[in-house]
C-alpha cells in the first residue's frame, strides 16, 4: 500500500511540469527590460503648437520612433521588418509621419500622437534605386521618385493619384523639387554622358524634358541651393557648376573654386546638408560656406576648421533661415547657430563639455523654440560616434540615450569583484529594524491585511530589494557584468541586477581613422578569468576588430579590463583572422590560450609568451577544428601540422586538412550548422529509465549538426512546392569526418534554427506538406557501454567504463528522433545552461513576435508515445501530442517584447537551479530562470515573518503546555 502511495506521489510530482510562471507583482523583481531605437539616420521635430514636444527619428535598425524632447523617453516606436530599411522620413499635414522604406516601395503614414499606422501604399516593384521623397504640404501630396517613376500619393489616405514613367534609364536622378508657389515639379538627374536632364512635371504629365550637355562632366551629387539654383562639382573637382532655373530651363555656369578660395587644395565634396541659399563644401580639414548671391554668382562667406557636423537649415520665420554647426574643441564641443543670410553674427554659440566615451559628433539636427522674450532659442539633437543620442539645450546636455545598445554584436560575461574587508561597496546596508519592518509589511501582504499604501510600499521595497545592484559578487552568482560589444565599436558593462551601465568604453581600435575607414567589431572572448589570483588580477576580455568586411583585412586585438573598463593593450596583428579557438588551457596568470586561424590556413597561438608555447606543446596534436564553406557546400576538418618554417615564429603553426565532406551543389545547400557549446557542463553520461534500465548518452563534444536543403528551397516559405523541396540533417563527427546520422525530411524547407546540447539536437524548420512549422529532436546514445549494466560485472571490474575512448574507433551509436508541430516561426533557439548541468533543461525559443518562450525539453523527448506505460509515466514521459503546447505563462518575457530580437544568451549562476537569460535585439531583456523551480534556495516569496511568528507561537505553546502540566500535576498531588 505504502509503495503504491509513494509511486503515485512520484508520478504526480513528475507529471507537474514546471513552467516558467510569474505573478504580476513579481515583474521587475529579477528581470529588466530596456528599450532602444538605434542610430538615428534622420530626424524631424514636432514642437510647434504641441503640448508634447517630440522628435521623430528613423534609425539604422529600421525603427521609427517618437522621442520625448523633455526626457528622452519613447512615446511610441515601431520596428519594421529586417529588410524594410527606411530611407526617408518626413511629416505631412502636421499630423502624419511619413516613412519611405524598402528601397522606396513602401510608403507609410503614422499617426503622430500614438504611432498608429494610418495608411500604407505599395509602389511598383523594380530595381532598388535611389529614391527621393517630397512632401507638398499645400496640395496634400507626397511625391516619390523611384526607379524611373514619379508617383504622386495623397497624404490623406495614401492613394496613388498618378504615376509617371520618366523613362530615366541610365539617368541618375539627383533632385526632386518644386519651386515656391508653383504646381510644376522638377526632376533633375545626371546621365553617364555628363548630361544634365531636367524634367518638368505638372499634374501627372511630363511637360518638358531638357538635356544640358556639360563638357566638364559632373562628379558626385548635385546640391539644391534654392528653388532656382543647383550646384554641382565638375569631374576635376576643382570647378563648381552653377545651374540656374529660368522659365523652366536650366542654364549652367562654371565657377572655379580657385576664384573663390585662392589657396584651396585637395578634393572638394559638397555636403548634403540642405542650407537655404547656400551650400557647404568640404575639404580635408575645413569646410567652406558658399552663398549663391544671384544668378550664377557665388560668394564665399565663411570658413570653418574642424567642423564635425552641419545641420540642415531651419526656417525661423518666412524669410530667415538658420543652420547649426558643431565643432570639436578638445573634450568640448562648440555648437554654433548662424543665420543663413548673415554669416558674421552668430545666433547662438555654446560650448558644451562632453564625456569622452561618446566620441565624435556625427550628425546634428537643429530645432528652435521661443523664449519668453519671443527671441529664438535653439536645441540640437546630436548623434555621436558611439550611436548615442544627446539633446543639447542652453549649453547643457538635457538627456542622452545610449542607443548603441540597440545593435549588439557579441556578449560575454564577467564576475564582479569580491567584497573585500574594510571596503564598503554596498550603498545601503539595511539595519535590523528596517529589515524587520519590511518583513512585517510582507506578512501583512500575505495575510491580505495590507492597505493600498502598504501594497505600494511592499512593491517599491521589493523592486529595490536588498542590494541587487551591488557592485560585488554574491553567493548565488546572480550579480554579474554583461560585457556587450556594439556595432558602433563601443563596449558596455551592464549590471545584471538592474541593467545599468557600469562603465562604457569607445574602443580606439574600432574608431574610424585614416588607416581604417570601416572598422567592424567581430568577436569578443573571455581572455582572463582569475580564480586563484582573484584578489590581485582583474578579469579581461579580448575584442577582435577588423578593417572592412574582407577576409584578408587587418585585425586589431584589444584587451579590456572588465572591472574598470580600461583598455589594457591594443595590438594590430600581422595576419587576418577567420576563426578563433579558445583552448582548454590557461597560463600561470590564468589567461586563456587562444588559437587564431588566418586566411592562409595558419594557426597563431595567443598570448605570445614562452609559457603559453610550453603549455601548448603537448597538445599540438590534439587540436581539431572544422570549417563550413556554405557557398561551395564543403565541410572540412583540420588539425595542426608543424611550426611555421618561413616565419621565425614560435607561435605559428601550419595546418593540414584531415577530411572534407562535399555536398552535391545541385541537390543540397547548407543552411545551418550548429555544434555544442564548448563550455557546456554535462552532469552525467548515464540516463536512468523508468524500467530501472540505464542508457548512456553519447556526449562527445565533437559533433556537428548540419542541415541542407534543396537549392530551390533556400528562399522563404512559399517559394517552392512540397515536391521539390527536402531537408537533410546530418550529425558529423568533427574529428574524423564520419557521418554518424543522416535523416531526410521530404517536403520541408528552411530556415533551420538548431540548438545542440548534451546528446541531443533540436531544430526548427518548415513542413510544406502540412504547411506548419515543425520542431524535431534527435538524441544520440552510446551503445558501446550498454553492457555495463550488470552490477556483478561492475563489482568484479569487468567493465569498460574506465577504458579510454578513441575518436577514431567506430562509435556504436543509436539515434532516436521525433517531430512535432510548432505554431510560430522562430528567430533563434537557445537552451538553458546551469552550473553543474543537473537541473533539467528548457529550450528558449525566440519567436518572430519577439517574445521568448521557455519550453521544457521533456516535450521534445523521442521516447514520447501516445500511450506511455506505467513505468514511462513514472519517469515523467508526457503522452505524445502532434504539436508542442504554447503555455502563455511560460513566456519568459511575459507581457513584454524584445523588439528586433536577434539572440538569446544563457549564463549559469552559481546556484545550480538557476540560469541567467539575456535576450537582445533592439531591446534588451534579462531575467533569471529556474527550469526545475528553485529547489536549492528559498524563493523570494518566502515569508520570514511567518516563520518568526510560528516560532513564537511554538515557544508560547511549549510554555503553555508546561504550565498546564505543572498545574495538573499539582492538582493530582492535592487530590
Amino acid at each position: 500500500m505504502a509503495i503504491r502511495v509513494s509511486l503515485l506521489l512520484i508520478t504526480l510530482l513528475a507529471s507537474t511540469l514546471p513552467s516558467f510562471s510569474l505573478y504580476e507583482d513579481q515583474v521587475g523583481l529579477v528581470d529588466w527590460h530596456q528599450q532602444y531605437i538605434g542610430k538615428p539616420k534622420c530626424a524631424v521635430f514636432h514642437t510647434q503648437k504641441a503640448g508634447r514636444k517630440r522628435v521623430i527619428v528613423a534609425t539604422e535598425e529600421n525603427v521609427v520612433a517618437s522621442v520625448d524632447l523633455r526626457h528622452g523617453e519613447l512615446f511610441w516606436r515601431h520596428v519594421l521588418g529586417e529588410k524594410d530599411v527606411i530611407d526617408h522620413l518626413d511629416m505631412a499635414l502636421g499630423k502624419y509621419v511619413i516613412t519611405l522604406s524598402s528601397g522606396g516601395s513602401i510608403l507609410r503614414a503614422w499617426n503622430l500622437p500614438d504611432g498608429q499606422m494610418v495608411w500604407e501604399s505599395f509602389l511598383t516593384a523594380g530595381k532598388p534605386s535611389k529614391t527621393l521623397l517630397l512632401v507638398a504640404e499645400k496640395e496634400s501630396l507626397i511625391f516619390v521618385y523611384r526607379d524611373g517613376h514619379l508617383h504622386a500619393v495623397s497624404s490623406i489616405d495614401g492613394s496613388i493619384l498618378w504615376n509617371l514613367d520618366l523613362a530615366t534609364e541610365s539617368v541618375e536622378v539627383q533632385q526632386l523639387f518644386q519651386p515656391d508657389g508653383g504646381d510644376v515639379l522638377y526632376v533633375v538627374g545626371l546621365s553617364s554622358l555628363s548630361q544634365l536632364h531636367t524634367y518638368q512635371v505638372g499634374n501627372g504629365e511630363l511637360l518638358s524634358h531638357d538635356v544640358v550637355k556639360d563638357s566638364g562632366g559632373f562628379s558626385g551629387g548635385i546640391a539644391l541651393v534654392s528653388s532656382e539654383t543647383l550646384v554641382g562639382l565638375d569631374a576635376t573637382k576643382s570647378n563648381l557648376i552653377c545651374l540656374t532655373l529660368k522659365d523652366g530651363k536650366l542654364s549652367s555656369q562654371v565657377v572655379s573654386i580657385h576664384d573663390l578660395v585662392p589657396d584651396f587644395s585637395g578634393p572638394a565634396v559638397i555636403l548634403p546638408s540642405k542650407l537655404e541659399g547656400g551650400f557647404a563644401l568640404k575639404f580635408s580639414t575645413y569646410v567652406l560656406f558658399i552663398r549663391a548671391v544671384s544668378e550664377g554668382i557665388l560668394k564665399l562667406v565663411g570658413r570653418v576648421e574642424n567642423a564635425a557636423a552641419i545641420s540642415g537649415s531651419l526656417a525661423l520665420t518666412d524669410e530667415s533661415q538658420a543652420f547649426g554647426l558643431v565643432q570639436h574643441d578638445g573634450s568640448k564641443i562648440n555648437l554654433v547657430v548662424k543665420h543663413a543670410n548673415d554669416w558674421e553674427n552668430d545666433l547662438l554659440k555654446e560650448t558644451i563639455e562632453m564625456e569622452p566615451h561618446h566620441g565624435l559628433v556625427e550628425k546634428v539636427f537643429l530645432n528652435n523654440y521661443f523664449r519668453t522674450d519671443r527671441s529664438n532659442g535653439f536645441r540640437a539633437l546630436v548623434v555621436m560616434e558611439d550611436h548615442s543620442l544627446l539633446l543639447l539645450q542652453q549649453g547643457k546636455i538635457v538627456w542622452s540615450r545610449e542607443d548603441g545598445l540597440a545593435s549588439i554584436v557579441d556578449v560575454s560575461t564577467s564576475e564582479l569583484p569580491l567584497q573585500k574587508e574594510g571596503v564598503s561597496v554596498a550603498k545601503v546596508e539595511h539595519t535590523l529594524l528596517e529589515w524587520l519592518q519590511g518583513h512585517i509589511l510582507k506578512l501583512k501582504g500575505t495575510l491580505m491585511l495590507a492597505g493600498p499604501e502598504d501594497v505600494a510600499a511592499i512593491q517599491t521595497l521589493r523592486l529595490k530589494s536588498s542590494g541587487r545592484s551591488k557592485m560585488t559578487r554574491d553567493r548565488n552568482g546572480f550579480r554579474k557584468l554583461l560585457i556587450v560589444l556594439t556595432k558602433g565599436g563601443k563596449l558596455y558593462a551592464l549590471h545584471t541586477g538592474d541593467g545599468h551601465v557600469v562603465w562604457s568604453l569607445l574602443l580606439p581600435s574600432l574608431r574610424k581613422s585614416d588607416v581604417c575607414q570601416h572598422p567592424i567589431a567581430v568577436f569578443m572572448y573571455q581572455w582572463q578569468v582569475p580564480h586563484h589570483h582573484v584578489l590581485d588580477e582583474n578579469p579581461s576580455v579580448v575584442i577582435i576588430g577588423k578593417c572592412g568586411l574582407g577576409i584578408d583585412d587587418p585585425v586589431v586585438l584589444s584587451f579590456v579590463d572588465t572591472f574598470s573598463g580600461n583598455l589594457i593593450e591594443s595590438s594590430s596583428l600581422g595576419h587576418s583572422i577567420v576563426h578563433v579557438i579558445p583552448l582548454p588551457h590557461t597560463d600561470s596568470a590564468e589567461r586563456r590560450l587562444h588559437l587564431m586561424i588566418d586566411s592562409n590556413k595558419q594557426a597563431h597561438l595567443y598570448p605570445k609568451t614562452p609559457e603559453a608555447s610550453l603549455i601548448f606543446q603537448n597538445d599540438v596534436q590534439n587540436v581539431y577544428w572544422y570549417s563550413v564553406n556554405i557557398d561551395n557546400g564543403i565541410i572540412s576538418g583540420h588539425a595542426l601540422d608543424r611550426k611555421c618554417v618561413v616565419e621565425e615564429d614560435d607561435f605559428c603553426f601550419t595546418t593540414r586538412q584531415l577530411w572534407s565532406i562535399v555536398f552535391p551543389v545541385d541537390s543540397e545547400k547548407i543552411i545551418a550548422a550548429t555544434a555544442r557549446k564548448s563550455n557546456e557542463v554535462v552532469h552525467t553520461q548515464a540516463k536512468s529509465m523508468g524500467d530501472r534500465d540505464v542508457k548512456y548518452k553519447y556526449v562527445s563534444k565533437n559533433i556537428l549538426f548540419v542541415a541542407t536543403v534543396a537549392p530551390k528551397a533556400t528562399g522563404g516559405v512559399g517559394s517552392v512546392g512540397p515536391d521539390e523541396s527536402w531537408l537533410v540533417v546530418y550529425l558529423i563527427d568533427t574529428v574524423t569526418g564520419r557521418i554518424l546520422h543522416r535523416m531526410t525530411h521530404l517536403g520541408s524547407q528552411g530556415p533551420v534554427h538548431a540548438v545542440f546540447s548534451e546528446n541531443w539536437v533540436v531544430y526548427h524548420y518548415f513542413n510544406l506538406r502540412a504547411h506548419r512549422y515543425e520542431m524535431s529532436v534527435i538524441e544520440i546514445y552510446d551503445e558501446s557501454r550498454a553492457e555495463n549494466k550488470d552490477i556483478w560485472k561492475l563489482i568484479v571490474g569487468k567493465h569498460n567504463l574506465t577504458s579510454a575512448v578513441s575518436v577514431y574507433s567506430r562509435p556504436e551509436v543509436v539515434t532516436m528522433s521525433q517531430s512535432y508541430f510548432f505554431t510560430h516561426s522562430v528567430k533563434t533557439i537557445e537552451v538553458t545552461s546551469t552550473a553543474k548541468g543537473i537541473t533539467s533543461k528548457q529550450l528558449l525559443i525566440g519567436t518572430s513576435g519577439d517574445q521568448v518562450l521557455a519550453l521544457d525539453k521533456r516535450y521534445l523527448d523521442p521516447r514520447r508515445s501516445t500511450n506511455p506505460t506505467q513505468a514511462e509515466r513514472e519517469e515523467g514521459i508526457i503522452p505524445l501530442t502532434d504539436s508542442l503546447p504554447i503555455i502563455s505563462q511560460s513566456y519568459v518575457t511575459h507581457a513584454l517584447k524584445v523588439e528586433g530580437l536577434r539572440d538569446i544568451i544563457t549564463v549559469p549562476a552559481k546556484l545550480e537551479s538557476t540560469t541567467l537569460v539575456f535576450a537582445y535585439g533592439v531591446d534588451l531583456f534579462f531575467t533569471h530562470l529556474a527550469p526545475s523551480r528553485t529547489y536549492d534556495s528559498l524563493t523570494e516569496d518566502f515569508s520570514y515573518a511567518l516563520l518568526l511568528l510560528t516560532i513564537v507561537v511554538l515557544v508560547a505553546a511549549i510554555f503553555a503546555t508546561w504550565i498546564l502540566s505543572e498545574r495538573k500535576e499539582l492538582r493530582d498531588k492535592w487530590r
Partner: protein
Amino acid sequence: MVEILRATLQKQRNFQGLKNQNRVHFDGVGVRRQSCCAAMAWIHRSGTSLLFLPLLLFFSRLLLSTDAALSSRQGDGYTIAGRVKIPSIGTKGYGIPGKISNVKVILNGGQVVTFLRPDGYFSLSLFVLDLYEGILIWNFVSHSHKVPPGTHLIEVYAIGYFFSPVRVDVSARNPSKVQAALTETRRGLSELILEPLREEQYYEVREPFSPMSLVKSPMGLMVGFMLIVVFLMPKLMENMGNILRRCGGHKKKRGAKVFPHWRAYYLVLQGISRQV
C-alpha cells in the same frame, strides 16, 4: 473563437460594377490581380474616406498595372489583404493595454512585416516579396501564368492574444482564387478575417488569501500540531484516571507518585487506539 463572415472572393471582372458602392463589401478580399483599368475614373470621383481604404488600395494597385510603361511582368504584383479582428481591444487586465498599433502581421516567417490600420485592415504586398525573392520568382512569373503561385503563411503577433498562423494558397491558374485556412485548427476560412484563438494570460493569478493555505504550509502544520497537543492532550489526560483505575486498581495515595510519566502516556495512547 473565430467567427466566419461572408465569403467575398471577388473576381476581377466584377469590379466593373463596383461603382455602385452599396454592393461593395471588402472585408478581406483575398488576392487580387491587376489587369483592368476600369476603376481609374472611379478613383477620381471617389471620396477619400478611410472606410474604403482597402478599396482605394486595391484600386491603387489597379492603377499601377494600368501604367503602360510597366512591363507586363512587373504588373503582376498582387496583394493579400485581410483584417484582424480583436474583440474589445484595450480592455485587458494585465497592465499593458492591448493596442492595435502594436500588432504585427508577418508573411512567410519574416519576409514582409506590416502593421494594422486603425480599422484592423492590413495588406501584404507581394511586390516587395518578389523584390527579395530575386530572379527565381521573376523567371517563374514570366514563363508561367504570370502570378507567383504558392502557399504563403501569415502570422499575426499581438501581445495578449494567440493567433493561429493562416495558410494562404494562391492558385497558379486562377490568381483571384484564394484559399485560406488556420493551420492550428485546420479549419478553412472563407475570407481573411483573423481573430485570436484565445487570450493569453502571461501571469499566474494569485490565489486569494485563505486560512487553509496558511494551515497547509509547513509552519501552519507545526502550529496546528502544537495546538492539538496543547488543547486535545489535557482532554485525553482526563480520561486517564478512568483508564488507570481500570488497569491497575491503584488507589490514589496522597503525595505518592503514581506512575512514571511515560507509562501514563503509553496508556493514554492505548486508550486512544481503543476508542478508535
